[in-house]
Structures are given as C-alpha cells and as structure tokens.
C-alpha cells in the first residue's frame, strides 16, 4: 500500500515521508536515529485530531497507527491495557461486552472536522486530555490513566504507573503525558481504568432564557447529593435563521418541546434510583415552578452523544474555542462577550464551547483576556481557514512556559517530538 522510498532502522517509510513502526522496539530504533541526527518528527496516530495545536515544522512523520490492539482486559480488576494506538471504538466495544465503559466520556471531534464520527486512538485521545460531559462528576481523562509504556526523545523505552489504582511508587508520569500533545513521549501502551456502565439514564430539560436562573440551577445541581452526571445549557442566541434550523435538526427529540433555550441535566443509575434522584432534585431545584420535560433513556443517550460530538458546530469553518472557567463564572463570561456567537455550556457551568467567525486576531485576544481575568483558560480547537493568526493556541504564562521547557528537556532534550505543537520552544 505504501511506496517504499527509503529504509530507516529497517522500518518502511512511505512517499509521504511517514514511518510506520510495528512495535515499541522499532519506535525506539527510529527515535535513536532521529536523536543522533537532531532531526525532529511529527507524531501521528489516525489523524483525527491533528488539526488541534500549532503546526509542527517537521519534514518527517512517525505514525504509531500500527501499534494497536488489546493487550489485557481484566473486567474484575477494572482495567484494560491496550497498545497505544488502539482505536477508541474497539476499546468501547470490548468494554461494552462486560457492561463497562470509559467513565470520562469521549468527545468525538470527527463531526467538527468532517461531519462524521471519528474518535481516534487511545494515545491520541489522552494526548489531548479533553474529557466529555461527565467530567465534573468522574474526573478527566488523566484521572483514568493508570500507567503507560512509551519511548522518550532519546529513544529509551520507559514505563510508569501500573495496573492498580493505589500506587505512589515514583513520579506519576501518566499525568504528565496526558494532555502533552505528543511532545514528551511516543506512547506505545496505556492502562486505562474502567468502570461499570450505568444501567440507565434520564434527562430533565428545563426551558429558560434567564441566565441568572441558569447559573443558580448549575450551582444547585452541583450541590446536590443526587449525583447528576451531565448538565448543559443551550442558549437561544444567536438568533440567525440558519443556526436555528441547524439546532432544530440536531436536537430533534419527541420530548424536547422547544429548541429555543434550555438547560438539560442527566441522572444515571437503575430506574428506581433515577426516580428517587429526580424526586429529590425536583425539590432542590424547585422544578415545579419551571417549565420542564423529561427525555427517557432512548432520547437521553443520543442527546448526550450529540453534545459530546459537538454536532452544533458540525464542519464549522469558523474558529472553535474551548474555554474552561470556574463553574460559577461561565454566565459572566458569556455576558462579557458579544451575544452574537454560537456557544453552549457543558460540565455544569465550567466548560464553554464558543464559535467565533472573526478573522481578526484581536477578537480571540479579547476573549482570552476576559477568560483569564475570571480565572480560566482558552484553547483554540479549530482555526478558521481565512484566519491568519498570531494568537497562541493555548493559554500559558511565562513561569509555566519556563517550567514546561524544563519538563520537555527532561523527556526530549533535543526537541525531537512535535516541536512547537504546544508552545514555541517546547
């Protein structure tokens, strides 16, 4: 399939200057040669999220896509060990057989990229550390990584962590490689913590345009002992027809009676406990005073799937921002930004997805400033093609940048892996 143009460490390289090692040792051999040559390389998996982050200035690419497959799955031990580039769909299918799941929920970036599901690989996903809706209840991707194996920038095969949840043996490097965008280690194996799948779920929809009330409801939901596992606010604005039409199309559910502006929250468990929780939440949130409907399990599952697939921003050509702020500040954030942008708020108030059509750097800069002032950070997930921008993709201050450079040096002293993908100099 690939045109062999040259051999390096006996590993085939295709015409696109991409290496395809088949195991950890081959990865190590390639990286050792690159290290000797001072030659940087772009690490890639299945290319589902490679549009996130800065462009790397590399002539060659190292695809880890062939390092794939389940190594060990012990449902009773609540972990699955997989080769780094195992597709997430395969992991999910395997877990499903034992009624288990990856509790953090996966954000499917395929829809914003090219309009269809494409979740990518385990290593690629953990390199981004973007958890889905359930984040505020169960933790992020980094909280579910028990251990890994990989190759550092010198070509050494290294490991950290293990398969047990309680482990304080040495530095927790699993946390460090999660969210590192492939700048520290070429990941070859990952052990993920898995949890029992929830038996059922129900979603309560509260129809309101009142932002102050939305803020109050988020606050009450996160103060409840009823274990709400998803809470999202979809606003009415912007009121342009095309967007409203798109919203109608995405959120087409029998029991979703209006797509104008609503807050939806999810309760999981068995049917009896779901009813019990909703009853309690009814009192805590004083829901009888509000207009509400219920999405049963058959509507609830696809509803949250659409939220986690960013379907409202399907194939967007605009800039898509991921903004994380203290949960009580998201409404403030929105009120400080002009009301003409498409957005929604997930994570019970902490995560805002915002689409900005601007072609000017100043707009993003201004939003970043507002975000930082309220104690949050902003990541530019997708850039408008027309947009020639100077603004950094990530939010970082000078001290953190300096420490990040040192950490990078500790793993990859010659900056072989994905140089500049996150920050200049890293």
């Amino acid at each position: 399939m690939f045109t062999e143009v040259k051999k390096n460490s006996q590993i085939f390289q295709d015409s696109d200057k991409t290496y395809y090692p088949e195991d950890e040792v081959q990865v190590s051999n390639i990286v050792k040669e690159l290290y000797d040559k001072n030659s940087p390389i772009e690490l890639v998996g299945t290319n589902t999220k490679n549009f996130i982050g800065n462009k790397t200035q590399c002539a060659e690419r190292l695809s880890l896509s062939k390092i794939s497959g389940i190594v060990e799955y012990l449902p009773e031990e609540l972990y699955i060990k997989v080769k780094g580039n195992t597709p997430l769909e395969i992991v999910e299918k395997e877990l499903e057989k034992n009624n288990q799941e990856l509790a953090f929920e996966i954000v499917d970036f395929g829809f914003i990229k090219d309009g269809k599901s494409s979740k990518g690989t385990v290593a690629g996903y953990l390199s981004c550390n973007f958890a889905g809706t359930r984040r505020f209840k169960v933790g992020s991707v980094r909280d579910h990584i028990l251990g890994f194996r990989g190759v550092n920038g010198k070509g050494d095969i290294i490991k950290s962590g293990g398969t047990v949840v309680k482990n304080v043996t040495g530095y927790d490097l699993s946390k460090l490689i999660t969210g590192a965008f492939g700048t520290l280690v070429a990941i070859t194996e990952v052990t993920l913590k898995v949890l029992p799948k929830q038996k059922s779920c129900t979603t309560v929809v509260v129809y309101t345009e009142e932002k102050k009330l939305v803020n109050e409801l988020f606050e009450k939901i996160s103060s409840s002992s009823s274990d709400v596992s998803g809470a999202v606010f979809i606003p009415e604005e912007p009121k342009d027809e095309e967007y409203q039409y798109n919203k109608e199309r995405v959120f087409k559910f029998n029991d979703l009676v209006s797509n104008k502006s609503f807050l939806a929250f999810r309760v999981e468990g068995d049917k009896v406990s779901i009813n019990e929780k909703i009853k309690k939440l009814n009192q805590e949130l004083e829901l009888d005073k509000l207009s509400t409907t219920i999405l049963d399990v058959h509507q609830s599952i696809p509803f949250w799937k659409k939220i986690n697939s960013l379907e409202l921003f399907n194939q967007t050509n605009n800039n898509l921002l991921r903004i994380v702020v203290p949960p009580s500040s998201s409404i403030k954030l929105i009120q400080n930004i002009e009301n003409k942008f498409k957005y929604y708020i997930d994570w019970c108030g902490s995560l805002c997805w915002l689409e900005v059509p601007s072609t000017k750097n100043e707009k993003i800069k201004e939003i970043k400033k507002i975000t930082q002032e309220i104690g949050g950070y902003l990541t530019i997930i997708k850039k408008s093609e027309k947009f020639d921008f100077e603004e950094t993709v990530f939010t970082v201050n000078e001290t953190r940048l300096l420490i990040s450079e040192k950490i990078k040096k500790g793993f990859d002293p010659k900056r072989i892996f994905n140089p500049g993908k996150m920050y200049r100099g890293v």
Partner: protein
Amino acid sequence: MSELVLPKIDEATISKKEYIFKNLSKIINPENVLTHKDEIKPYETDALAAYTQTPLAVVMPENTSEVSNILKFCHKENVKVVPRGAGTGLSGGALPLNDAVLLSLGKFNKILEIDFENKCVVTQPGVTNLGITDAVKHKGFYYAPDPSSQLACSIGGNVAENSGGVHSLKYGTTTNNILGVEIVMMDGTICRVGGKTLDQEGYDLMGLICGSEGLLGVITEATVKILKNPQVVKAALIGFPTIEEGGNAASEIISSGIVPAGMEIMDKALIEATDNFSKAGYPRDAELLLIVELDGTVSEVDELLNQVSNICKKNNCSSLKLSKNEKERLSFWAGRKAAFPACGAMAPDYYCMDGSIPRGKLAEALLEIKNLSKKYNLPVANCFHAGDGNLHPLIMFDGSNKEELKRTEEFGAEILKTCVRLGGVITGEHGVGVEKRELMCEMFNDKDIQQQLDIKKSLDEKNLLNPGKVYPILRKCAEEGRVHVHRGEEKFPDLPRF
C-alpha cells in the same frame, strides 16, 4: 534497623553554617529560625521513627514570599532543603539531613477561602486533612481523601504523598481531588497551577507534583474539591470460613459492577487481635472478615447491599450483618480502626508493609504471606483495602533480638517482591521515602528510573531539594526496613492508621 545510606554530607555547607543561619535570619523573622540542638530535636524524624537525623537548622516561614527567598538563598549557596508538613509520613520522606535546612510549613495553617459556589476550598498546606472537612461540614460537604491519620496529617503533605484512604476506589486519591496548587521551585520561582477550574491546560504539573514526595517543589497553597455528603451510608460485616471464599466474594462484588465506597478485609489473626482489643463483636470463627460500605440514595444502597449479601452467601459466608443505623455502622469499623494498637498489644514490635496488588490476587497473596510467616517463623496479621488492592501486612517481632529483626526485614522485603510479582506495586499510599528506596528496582529498570531522575534534574539541577529520597542511592535491591513501631514508640502512636 538496617543502616541507612544518605547523600554525602557537604562539608562546605557545614563549615559556613553560621553564615547560613545569619542570612536565614535576615530573610525571615529570626524567631522562626531554629538552630539550637534542643529546639531542633523534635524535627529529627517523621513518623518513620526508626531513623533520626539532626537537621542543620529548622526554618518556619510564614508566607510564600519567605519560602521563595529561603529557597533562592539555599539554591545560590548550594544548601540542601528538606520540606516538612505535619511529619506524619510513614516512609521517611521528611527525614532531615545533617547538611540540610528543614523547611517546616507548620505556620501555613490557615484556610484562605471556602467557595461553596465553585465547590472548592483554597487552603494553606499546613491545614490538616480533617480541618478541611470540618470547615465545610455545616453545609453538608466534605473533602473525600481520608487517610486514617487525617486528624493530624496536613493537606500539603497529602499532596506531596498523594495520600489515599479507605474510599479511594470510588472517590480517588489526593491527585483526583485537587484543582490547583501554588508551588515554589528550588530556585525560588513561584508557580501557580490550576485554580478553581476543572482541569488545567498544558503539562500537568499538578499531577507531577502530587506524590513527588517533596523532591520537585514546595507546596505553599492548594485548592481542593469538596463533595456533598451522600444521602445514605450503610455497611455490611461478613465472615468467611476460608481465605479463598472471602477473596473470591470481594472480587465478585467488583466484577458484578458494584463500586463500594469502601471495602476492607482482615484475616483471622487480625480479627482476633482487634476483637480482643476493642470488643468489636467480630465473628471469631471466621478465617476472613469483609467490611463493605456503600453510599448513595436510599434505594440504591439497599439494592446494592442486597446484591452484596447474595454474592457473599453464594461464596459460603459464615456470618452476615447489615448495619441498621449509623451507630452500628461505626461499630463495624471500630475494630478495623484499632488494628494497629491491637497488634502493638500482641508483640513488642511490628512492621507495617504497604504493597498494592490486583484485587483478584488477594487470596494468593494472603496464602503466600501465610507460608512466608511459617518460613520466617514470625506471626503476621493482615488488613487490606480490598476495594483498591492495597495490602497492609503487620509482621510482629521483638526488635531487641537482632536476629529476629533481620528475619523480619527479609520477610518484609519478600512480601513487597511478592506484590510486584503478582502484578502490583511496592507502595500504595505510604510513599517510597527512604524506606523503600532501594526496592524501586523491583518495579523499574534503569531506563525508567533514569527518566524520573532526568525530570528531577531538569527542575532541580543541583539536586538540592529533598535529596536521598525515593530513588535508590545504591541502585540495588537492598532489603530495608518498613514502618517499625517499638513498644508503641511510633511518632504518633495514638493516630488511627491505614
């Protein structure tokens, strides 16, 4: 105890100690610089009391800027620094060095902000773990990680050690429950990571610092997540006639999809010891005792207790009691929490081990330990956080008998090696410190350890911050000591443990 190898003393530091004292007294209030031998005596050890070292001086800064200036000065003058929280650590992570300044965070004892809106508490590191829960309990909230020493251990120490507790399976350890930290690097750089947001962007420095045992930075502030109390908490107390049946039941509970808030196991030796000591009413005929705690809504907990009961019956349990009220639930835990004093009453000394194993290997591990007990001719009692695989065997011995002490150490090392062989690790929650340093090579090869040392070097290039801890000095699997308690002379003998 075996003789402990520590980093070579830097004579240059010793020779200029008056100069160092003088400068430290300029940086902070001179009253907070302790140099007299009587003043620094209490700081000679942490809760791994078997090892003592006299620090060069003890400094007690009162704010982050003072910490930064102290570190800047020590960095410039090549003086080692050992950070210390409440000193309750069990692996010698805060053991002083003769040529190092001991940096006590004891004066950082204030909660800075309670933010119920964002469900977090911003605190100084010297506040105790329980102090956080105490500050928010009036509104029905709590801080989830609950190491048994929570009454005395500080939150800064919890971050440094990534402390766990009995509820780790469901609620995670410290690393899963903090949102932000302020740290001071060895060169004095002050760095804030995270805050009140969920997650942080960029390299997860907070994840790296958490559990780094004071080797990478000094924690001067932490923002921790608080949770709402569950609606109902109930427990089951179940006896089994054999280790295998009890172990199988514990595994089956997890594999059936139940995530208990806590699940503890005790073996026969410990059942008898604790029942004698605390009159907990445990089933003394049982070979293995299981305590399962469940929380959630009323119907959820009742349904799960029902499932747990059925699994235990299927595995031939010999007794089964469900807590009818809060008083009874606490009585189920009374004996378990007295495990350590109970062992202290049975023998002049005991060693506590802290390995983690896959839950399914429980029966195998306990049987192996039983065989080792025969081989080394030393009695052992076992308790086990079965929910998260954390095993605490207690070897009983007489420390005044040198030959017996040596045998105990060999026995202990063999238990930890067994944990690794069964797919586990050498420390689940006590940390490596100086105690298990030389056993690191049981789990990691040279490349793995070198990677960790490279990170240390990149953040503390002169290796001045808490040197001699965690990473093997000898790079061989020496068989060093575990938690050694001699005639109740542990540093905090009254604290509940494990």
